[in-house]
């Protein structure tokens, strides 16, 4: 259904384009809207495609709203750069995108590994990047070989900030918490687990009783559940993504466990409670304050426009696209100016959060908020202190 709608939209916009060109060629007196390109890079095919499709839909939505509001002046197009989430593919698409000067800004890359593989080309091309989901700490660490400055920016908070927040929120108001932490072996979850565990060690009264690392295609969590039972944990933290978290939390509840389940911003998604149903109740998740609070109204508008509900990192992708679009509105048409614009940008995201970047490209956020799943909805319980 969705792809049908997308296709018909594509046909319509293509038709509109042809029509537009035709009219301008006959009546050249009328100024054509300025055609500009921004790109999105992430996994759009293959096994990781769910993340990328969700993100690019949000980017397309932002651009659609922008084009509709500025019909006379601008016609912004989104170039889809599919890296399959694979650093190997990223290093073949990045050189092309980096040298295509028509593209003046890029939302993404979605994954940290792909980002590192792409960075040399974007640095050489001076293309401003705003990633909605690459969370690896080293990307904005000037001392690291992975450092992405000056081109790399992100509107998602990093693991080292989230780790302590997640550790605190998961164990808050629990008497002598015994914690079990596990990851999905991905480049997102493993470092985050490291920061969660490091934070645990500094918290008095909290003990780390066990851990596991499960391949990200696992659906049978019996061995992990056995470990949790043996360890006597009363708090279980998963640092991976929502789809597996939903499968896991169901099995956790079915096994008769009443331990608290907690997850990071990879789990923080409405789809988590949709997939897990009643088992998700009471789960504690952390997400970025403000960015996370998007109302039902925006969601309905999104669904109406794109034909599908918003997905992972939708808010981040939307905000990232809007930073570029604001630049375009301010009259920017080249990369160098766009990079300056992004670096100096100060604005407000759709959720009301302040969007601005520090010198290393990290978003300047107030901190993380805690969310508890209550009657199937993610309820904000305020910032984690």
């Amino acid at each position, binding site marked *: 259904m969705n792809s049908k709608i997308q296709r018909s939209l594509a046909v319509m916009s293509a038709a509109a384009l042809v029509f537009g060109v035709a009219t301008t060629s006959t009546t050249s007196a009328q100024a054509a809207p300025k055609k500009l390109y921004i790109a999105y890079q992430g996994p759009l*095919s293959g096994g990781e495609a769910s993340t990328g499709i969700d993100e690019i839909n949000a980017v397309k939505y932002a651009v659609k709203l922008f084009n509709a509001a500025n019909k006379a002046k601008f016609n912004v197009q989104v170039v889809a750069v*599919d890296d399959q*989430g694979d650093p*190997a593919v990223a290093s*073949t698409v990045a050189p*092309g995108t980096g040298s295509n000067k028509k593209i003046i800004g890029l939302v993404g890359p979605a994954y940290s590994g792909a980002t590192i593989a792409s960075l040399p080309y974007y640095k050489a091309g001076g293309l401003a990047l705003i990633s909605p989901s690459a969370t690896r700490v080293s990307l904005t660490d000037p001392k690291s070989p992975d450092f992405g400055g000056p081109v790399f920016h992100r509107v998602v908070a990093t693991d080292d900030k989230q780790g302590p927040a997640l550790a605190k929120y998961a164990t808050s108001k629990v008497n002598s918490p015994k914690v079990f932490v596990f990851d999905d072996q991905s*480049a997102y979850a*493993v470092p985050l687990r490291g920061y969660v565990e490091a934070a645990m060690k500094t918290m008095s009264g909290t003990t780390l009783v066990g851990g596991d690392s499960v391949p990200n295609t696992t659906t049978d969590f019996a061995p992990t559940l056995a470990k949790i039972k043996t360890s006597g944990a009363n708090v279980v933290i998963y640092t991976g993504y929502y789809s597996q978290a939903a499968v896991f939390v169901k099995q956790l509840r079915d096994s008769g466990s009443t331990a608290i389940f907690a997850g990071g911003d990879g789990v923080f998604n409405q789809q988590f409670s949709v997939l897990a149903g009643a088992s998700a109740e009471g789960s504690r998740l952390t997400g970025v304050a403000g960015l996370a609070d998007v109302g039902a109204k925006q969601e309905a508008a999104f669904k109406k426009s794109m034909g599908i509900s918003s997905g992972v990192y939708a808010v981040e992708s939307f905000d990232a696209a809007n930073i570029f679009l604001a630049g375009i509105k301010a009259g920017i048409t080249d990369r160098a100016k766009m990079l300056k614009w992004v670096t100096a940008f100060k604005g407000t995201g759709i959720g009301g959060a302040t969007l601005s970047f520090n010198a290393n490209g990290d978003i300047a956020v107030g901190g993380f908020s805690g969310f508890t799943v209550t009657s199937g909805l993610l309820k904000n319980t305020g910032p984690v202190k």
Partner: protein
Amino acid sequence: MKIRNYWNLRDFGASMWEKSNRPQRIAIAIGSIFLVGLLPFAGASFLATPIAAYDAVLVYPVGVFVLMALGLNIVVGKSGMLDLGYVAFFAIGAYTMALMGTHTGLNTWEIMPFGIAFSMLAGVLLGLPTLRLRGDYLAIVTLGFGEIVRLIALNSSWTKGPNGIANIPMPPDIGPLKFKLEDQKVFFWVVVTMILLVIWMIRRLSIRRPGRAWESIRQDEDAAELMGVPTLKYKIWSFTLGAAVGGAAGVLYASKNLFIAPEMFTLNVSILILSCVVFGGIGNIWGVVVGATILGYLPDRIRFISDARLLVFGLVLVVVMNFRPDGLLPRKKREKAILKREVSV
């Protein structure tokens, strides 16, 4: 059915080659190499790849795939063993480059022998116990080996786990030829040189003792053994040579990509390389080159259909295999007849 001969590129090429005398052959060879060397300059033609940079695509996937497919062809095509874990040797080469490149002061060319040696060592270690197995049992064991190498890289701290290794040094300049990220022509020429070396090696071996031994093993292993061919020894040789080529490709790839992570070395790569070999024409060097070129190039050429790209790729495999089961450029008829009778691959 004479008309079909015009379409038979292999016979056309072969007859042209056979009719020529030595100076003409040298001229043809140098001319073709020169033309291939000019390929990176054809970026503005119909060959151009949307989104991906044309010269980068020529290096990876195309060049690296051709190199690896040639290496795998020694194992699958020449001696008839089904190897589904070829990516392991690629990974070992790449990790050798990454670890030595970031920890020692050695450059790419100095690390290359190490990468090849480690891959060969892995080939021998895996081959000794397992090459007694036949057909599909060998397939699953090699498949498992490929996964084990990836999982060790993913779960060990010395390989930096899922984070991968960044800042791998680029190769040092060769005289006036400078390796650059924005312009990968030099990388392409290096890959082409390596491909030519491998082709030369395979051709030399094919007409000598090892080639004949592989051929006999491929046709009937029991008969070969009875005729006094030390089959295990030659099977290990073929496996190890294949491994060496995979390792060399890995070293070069890591040094070109500057970053590697375990997720690059999945089973899919092994399957893709095997597809290149079979798609082009198993056992025939030029077929393999053509197959790998097309399968490496196609997904990037058809990026304009974005969403359904892999779907089209899968369908192309089905359609081409159905209509040209021996590949685009099959090996000679005499060998093919034998292949049909084969029971275990």
